[in-house]
């Protein structure tokens, strides 16, 4: 599973993407956020603020109950600020 990060999430983590293999009981975005938050101190810092984080699965914006699969590209980012 490919995880992509943008904006301040990328800066705190020091990486723009990573490949992960979550355990089988990780079924949706909410589970994934909890699990990713245990990966490192930096991850914990990022995912503690998960209320301010939006996400997409395969380039579609989804909510945190969205189910996930092993070959998904999942992105985490703050609300958009273009224009």
């Amino acid at each position, binding site marked *: 599973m490919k995880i992509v990060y943008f*904006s301040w999430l990328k800066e705190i983590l020091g990486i723009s993407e990573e490949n992960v293999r979550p355990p089988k009981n990780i079924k949706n975005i909410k589970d994934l956020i909890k699990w990713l938050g245990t990966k490192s101190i930096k991850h914990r810092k990022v995912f503690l603020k998960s209320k301010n984080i939006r996400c*997409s699965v395969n380039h579609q914006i989804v909510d945190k109950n969205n189910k996930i699969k092993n070959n998904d590209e999942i992105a985490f*980012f*703050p*609300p*958009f*600020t*273009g224009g």
Partner: protein
Amino acid sequence: MIKVQKQRINVSEQNRNLLKKRIGAVVNFIGVARPLNNSGKIKYIEIEHYPKMTEKKIKEIEVFASKKWKLNHCIIIHRYGKIKPGENIVYVGTAAQHRNNAFKACEFIIDYLKVKAPFWKIEQQNNKKTYVKSKKKDEKKIKVNY
């Protein structure tokens, strides 16, 4: 027509492209990088985007607006990378038979771009970098799901 690009937007060229269509009304919006924020002078802003998703999200907005307001033509260009104060950031141009539709579509497109297209801004000052936060008032404008 949609473009996501690093270089400055040639506004005159885009307006000429819209005027070529020989229709009744052309409206455009140009977003410009501000020289100041609440804590002082801005050296430059930096815009990041999600390449695999950006054009797709802009296209959804363009398709919806073009259909709803019967546009004859629509141009949306958004920049990314480093942008200095005074430079353009985004261009929205709409062409329709009548001004009302061109105005409404242009306003809709820029409002939805702000909230639905995956861009993130940083304001760089002398010794400070700020991630721009989204505004509640922008999110409140979003009422249509397409």
